[in-house]
C-alpha cells in the first residue's frame, strides 16, 4: 500500500507556487500556474491559504486576462478557481465560463467537452453508477501506438465523465490500460502515463497493484522544492539551447499539475474516490 498523500504533496507544491508567482509571467505560464493552484487548493484547502487570497494574484493584472490562450482544461481550471476566490478578478473568468457553457454541447463528444460539462455541472461529488459498456477496440491497447492509446483515453474520459460515472467491469480494458500506463512510465512519458493512470482510476482500478505502483512512482518523483519530475538533463539542455528566462517553467507547471491530479484520482479522500472535476467550483 502506498504511503504518499496527495494532501501533503499539494501543500509542498503550493509552497513552490508561492515562490514563482511574485514575478510577471507569460499568459500561458500564468494560466498553468493558476490551474495548478486550483488543484493544490482542491486537494488541501487548509495548507494553501495564501493561494486562495485574491491579493496574492493581484500583481498579475488578471483583469484583461486571455483565458483562451491556453488549453481548455487548464483555462477552465484557472477560470473556475478565480471565480471561486472572487475579489475583483472574477469578471473575465465568469465571462469565459459563460462562453464555454454556451458553446460546449450538453452531450459531450470528446474529452475536452466532457471535462467542461463535468466541471460546470458539479452538482454532486457522488459518483453515479451506470451500466454503460465502453466501445473500445482492445487491439488499440496492444498496438504499441500512442495515438491509438490516446483515442482510448479520450473515450474513457468522455464516457465516464472523468470518473464521475461509475461503469461496470469492462473485461480486460482496465488491466490492459495499466500495462499501457507502465509502458509510458518506462519511457518516462509522464503526461501519457499519468493520463493513463487516471483513466485506470475512472475504470475503478485505483488500489490495484499497478495503480499503487504508479502512485508510488508519482510520490517519489516529487522534488524537495515541491515540483514533480526528474528533468535535470532536459532542463540543462533547454537552458543550453535557449536564451529565454525560465524555459523549464512550463514543464514543471504542466507535470506538477498532471502529477497532483493523478495522485488525487488514484487516492481516496474520506474513504471515497476523489474526483477533481467534482471539487473545482
Amino acid at each position, binding site marked *: 500500500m502506498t504511503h504518499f498523500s496527495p494532501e501533503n504533496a499539494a501543500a509542498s507544491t503550493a509552497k513552490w507556487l508561492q515562490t514563482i508567482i511574485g514575478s510577471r509571467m507569460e499568459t500561458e505560464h500564468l494560466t498553468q500556474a493558476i490551474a495548478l493552484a486550483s488543484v493544490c487548493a482542491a486537494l488541501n484547502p487548509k495548507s494553501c491559504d495564501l493561494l486562495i487570497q485574491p491579493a496574492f494574484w493581484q500583481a498579475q493584472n488578471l483583469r484583461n486576462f486571455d483565458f483562451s490562450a491556453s488549453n481548455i482544461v487548464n483555462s477552465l481550471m484557472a477560470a473556475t478557481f478565480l471565480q471561486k476566490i472572487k475579489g475583483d478578478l472574477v469578471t473575465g473568468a465568469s465571462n469565459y465560463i459563460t462562453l464555454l457553457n454556451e458553446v460546449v454541447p450538453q452531450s459531450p463528444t470528446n474529452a475536452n467537452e466532457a471535462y467542461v460539462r463535468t466541471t460546470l455541472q458539479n452538482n454532486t461529488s457522488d459518483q453515479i453508477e451506470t451500466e454503460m459498456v465502453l466501445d473500445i477496440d*482492445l*487491439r488499440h*491497447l*496492444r*498496438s*504499441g501506438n500512442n495515438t491509438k*492509446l490516446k483515442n482510448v483515453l479520450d473515450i474513457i474520459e468522455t464516457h465516464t465523465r472523468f470518473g464521475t460515472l461509475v461503469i461496470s467491469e469492462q*473485461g*480486460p480494458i482496465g*488491466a*490492459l*490500460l*495499466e*500495462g*499501457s500506463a*507502465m*509502458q509510458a*512510465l*518506462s519511457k518516462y512519458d509522464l503526461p501519457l*502515463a499519468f493520463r493513463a493512470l487516471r483513466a485506470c482510476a475512472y475504470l475503478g482500478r485505483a488500489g*490495484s*497493484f*499497478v495503480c499503487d*505502483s504508479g502512485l*508510488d*512512482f508519482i510520490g517519489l518523483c516529487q522534488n524537495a522544492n515541491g515540483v514533480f519530475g526528474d528533468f535535470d538533463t532536459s532542463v540543462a539542455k533547454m537552458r543550453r539551447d535557449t536564451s529565454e528566462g525560465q524555459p523549464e517553467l512550463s514543464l514543471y507547471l504542466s507535470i506538477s499539475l498532471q502529477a497532483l491530479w493523478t495522485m488525487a484520482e488514484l487516492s481516496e479522500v474520506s474513504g471515497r474516490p476523489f474526483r477533481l472535476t467534482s471539487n473545482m467550483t
Partner: protein
Amino acid sequence: MSFLFDPRQRQHMADGIFSWVDDHLEYFDPPQEDEILDDTPEDVTSDKRRKAFGELGACLRLINRCPDLRDREDVQALCQWWIETGDARQIFFDLRRRIQLFPLRVVAQAVRATLGGYDQAVTDEMQNVMERGVIDRYEISAWHKMDMKYYVDLIGLCHGYDTDENLFKHSFLQAMPTLQDATNYDLYGLTHLIFGFADFGNKDITKLVGPHMTYLLDYTAGALAMCLARCDWDLAVELMMTRIYLGVRNHTLDREAARAICECQKPSGFIPGRKFLAGTTQADDPMMQREKEFFDVYHPTLVTMFLITAELSEYPA
C-alpha cells in the same frame, strides 16, 4: 484443457508453427562439432545455431507430454530429424573440455532421454564434469542456477545446487524491480525461474511460493499487459506460460493476450520478434534477410509452441 485458444485457433497456430520450423531446418542445424579443431576446446563457445537446436529440442521434449501434438506426423518427423541431426553433428564431441557448451549439452541430453537416442555414457561424462567443481559453482543469478539445475536433475546428475526452497528464497521473486523499471532481462529471469520451479507445469508450486502468490499474480498480470502494450510477443508468451504455471485459468487478460498472439502470427507461421517489428531484420540480400529474420523470430515462435503445450498439458490437482 483449453482456456486460452479455441481448438480451431490452436490447430491453425500449431500447423503454421510446424510448417515454418520445417521450412527453416537449415538454421536449426548445429555445427559439425568434430570438425571444429583449430580452437582450444575451452574456448569453443555456444553460438546461435547451437542455441536454436537446443531450444527446438526443449520444445519437442514438452510437446511429447501432449498426445494431441506428439502424435502428429510432422512432429514425429521433426523429432526424428532432431535425434539424427544430433548424432550426425556429434553434438557431445569433446564433452569434458568444451566446457562452455556444457549447459546446452545437458539440455540436449535431457531431450534425448525423452525423445530417444539417450546414451548413458554421455551422462557419465557429464557427471565427471560436474564433479570437477566448476559448473555448479559459477557466480550466477538464481535464474541461471535454476535453468541448469532443472536439466541436470532431469538426467539425474549429482550436483551442488541449492534446494528449490532456498533458490526461491534467494531469488528476486519476492521483491522484483518496479514494473516500469523492469528490464527484459528481469522479466526473463522471472519467467525462467517459474518454469524451472514448476517443471513446466508438472509441479504445483503453490506451497513453494506460499504467501508471495498474490504478489506474483499481480506482478505477472501487470508485466503481461505492459509487454502487450509494447508488442513484445516473446515475453508476453513467456508471461502467459508463467501465469498458467501459477494456476491462472480463464482470466480475461490472458485470453486477450492469446487473441493478440493469434493475430500477430504471420502467414508463413512465425511469431514476430522485437527486431522484426522494429524493421531491423531487413537486408539487401534475400538470403541474409531470411537468416536475420530467422534468428529474431524463432524464439517467439518456439515459445508459442511451449504455450500451446502449457495449455494442453494435464496439471497436478
